């Protein structure tokens, strides 16, 4: 596991101890180097009015000169004044779609000649991905999913096999969106650990270039294949300034002090009724969330009954079927389902996996069709005693 092998590089505030610089042109060479090593390169590109993740064939596929404007329930592409390749925050996709595909076959079974059945493992080959343009919040999300899928009592082999092969090229975030709050969650905007290479894009008087930090030997080998020079003090200072300023421009913030106890103590807070009156229980937030991991299985058979596939797909705790037990759902109301999602994300996750399930990427806020804002919901529960007048709201 290349990126996981990277040890903690220190706290977010500390500038990189050593860094190198590549010219913008060299990024193409870096992508070529990934291709030569057998990686399928996945990164940001513009499609359907959004910056999504897809296979990249060259830097020409990057969202050059584009940025994203995000607010609760709203996402729009906009032109930048410069030609930055990574001048946006995050889009609707997250990397989880490549580590645990939205639908896949868990196993299949086929009839044998003697009339019995034989069970076969998932036959698909394990893809070898290089993720390019991974944000710091997304590195944190991958680390969260590692704890869910690999560190538990049973490993998810689909995830583990793919994760094992992944190479991570992070790109530090210089333009947080209106829904971003990674600074509150301690997950960004500067990538400090969990990457093979971390880039900071600079567009200043000295030209379009990237300051590069090396996280692993695999990253080192990749960088050594392309033209680079040692970073000078002013390159490093400019790179650190990018993320320092980004940290000051978070569109949202969340006070996470004692949040586990806060939510455990407020399972019957009237705010849950309030949010339930707005929530459509559509599940968009869970699909957009880079850490939500729930799945369901369905059996699919051919007409002759010769072959069975157990198909596994992302599921959402917002569906009524999700808790169906012995004839009835446990969580029959939207109130209980929103409470489950938010309480899991911010509180029970800590008991289960030793960290928050939220990385502050803001996707659930942006992609909620009615603009429900998790930071606002937390603030409401924190700031109000049961009070109809709302006078106690922060």
């Amino acid at each position, binding site marked *: 596991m290349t990126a996981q092998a990277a040890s903690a590089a220190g706290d977010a505030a500390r500038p990189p101890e050593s860094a190198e610089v590549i010219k913008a042109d060299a990024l193409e060479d870096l992508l070529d180097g990934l291709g030569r090593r057998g990686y399928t390169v996945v990164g940001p590109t513009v499609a359907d009015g959004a910056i999504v993740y897809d296979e990249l064939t060259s830097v020409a596929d990057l969202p050059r000169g584009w940025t994203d404007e995000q607010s609760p329930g709203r996402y729009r592409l906009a032109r930048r004044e410069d030609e930055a390749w990574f001048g946006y925050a995050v889009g609707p996709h997250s990397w989880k779609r490549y580590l645990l595909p939205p639908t896949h076959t*868990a*196993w299949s*079974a086929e009839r044998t000649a003697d009339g*019995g*059945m*034989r*069970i*076969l*493992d*998932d*036959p698909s080959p394990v893809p070898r991905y290089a993720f390019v343009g991974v944000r710091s919040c997304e590195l944190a999300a991958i680390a969260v999913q590692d704890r*869910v*899928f690999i560190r*538990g*009592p*049973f*490993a*998810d*082999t*689909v995830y583990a096999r793919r994760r094992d092969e992944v190479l991570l090229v992070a790109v530090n975030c210089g333009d947080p969106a209106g829904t971003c709050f990674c600074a509150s969650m301690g997950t960004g905007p500067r990538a400090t650990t969990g990457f093979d290479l971390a880039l900071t894009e600079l567009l200043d008087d000295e030209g379009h270039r990237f300051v590069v930090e090396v996280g692993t030997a695999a990253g080192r080998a990749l960088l050594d294949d392309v033209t680079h020079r040692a970073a000078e003090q002013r390159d490093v200072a400019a790179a650190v300034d990018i993320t320092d300023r980004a940290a000051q421009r978070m569109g949202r913030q969340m006070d996470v002090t004692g949040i586990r106890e806060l939510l455990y103590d407020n*399972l*019957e807070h009237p705010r849950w009724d309030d949010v339930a009156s707005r929530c459509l229980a559509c599940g968009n937030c869970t699909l957009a969330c880079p850490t939500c*991991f*729930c*799945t*369901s*299985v*369905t*059996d699919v*058979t051919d007409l002759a*009954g010769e072959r*069975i596939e*157990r198909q*596994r797909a992302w*599921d959402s*705790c917002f569906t009524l079927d*999700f*808790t*169906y*037990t*012995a*004839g009835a759902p*446990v*969580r*029959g*109301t939207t*109130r*209980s389902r929103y409470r*489950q999602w938010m309480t*899991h994300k911010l509180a*029970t996750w800590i*008991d*289960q996996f030793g960290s928050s399930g939220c990385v502050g990427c803001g996707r659930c806020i942006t992609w909620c069709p009615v603009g429900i804002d998790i930071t606002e919901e937390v603030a409401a529960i924190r700031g109000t005693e049961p009070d109809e007048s709302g006078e106690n709201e922060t």
Partner: protein
Amino acid sequence: MLPVSEAVAATPLAPRLTHVDRVERETADTVTLHVSAVDTELPPFAPGQFDMLSALGVGEVPISVSGDPDDRVTRQYTIRAVGAVTRALTSLRPGGVMGVRGPYGHPWPVEAAVGADVVVVAGGLGLAPLRPAIHHLLAHRDRYGRISILYGARSPDELLFADEMQRWQSDVDVAVTVDAPSAPGKAIPPWDGRVGVVTTLIPDALFDPHRATALVCGPEVMMRFTARALADQGVTGERVYVSLERSMACGVGLCGHCQLGPFFVCVDGPVLRHGLVGPWLAVREL
């Protein structure tokens, strides 16, 4: 593609194939399946653990093992037909094939209870997950103090393992009650036993409340009232264990469905101390 043995090692979600050897009808909608492995033996289970059972082509459900844990060859499952998968499983005939993977989850604390009294309280189908524990207690009868089995069913025709219960009676205290001695529209054998919910048996049961361990399984509301009735007798929640039922799509802590507050019922349960899980069970729709 990998053959089955390697596939099992490769993914925790692939079942082993088993044959149904015998089908015992328990009630109108409940049967006990006796199954054995087609090739590789099923790993031994501890009382209270569950397996994920596959009706091939239909789906998979968690079912507690209901047979004797010392029987290494045959696995028993007592299943009520309530949904598509349990209907398919309860329709299996001898020779039929089904998938099994497991065992999973935390078992009943039969070791921790050694040297003290044990109270087993079962409601309806909840007797099935307790039956392996009863087998264990009977097989090691001299290691325990007084053993009381308190069982409640809705009506006399819903009683499970009635013949077996007669045999248990020679070694342990057994008390049985039904909610109602008759049911409208159903021909039910005459009942001259106790009538009332299972908690009404608790004040009459003989056990040392300061040392006894209680094993409780049944509908959630029954477990809540049983824990309260036991507390009234002086058995604290630290020594009351319940077995929970939740939707499970994986059984191994990966699918997310079975969460109850901080617990994954599949890996943290299904058997949990009531003192620990009671406050979470008390929150509606959690």
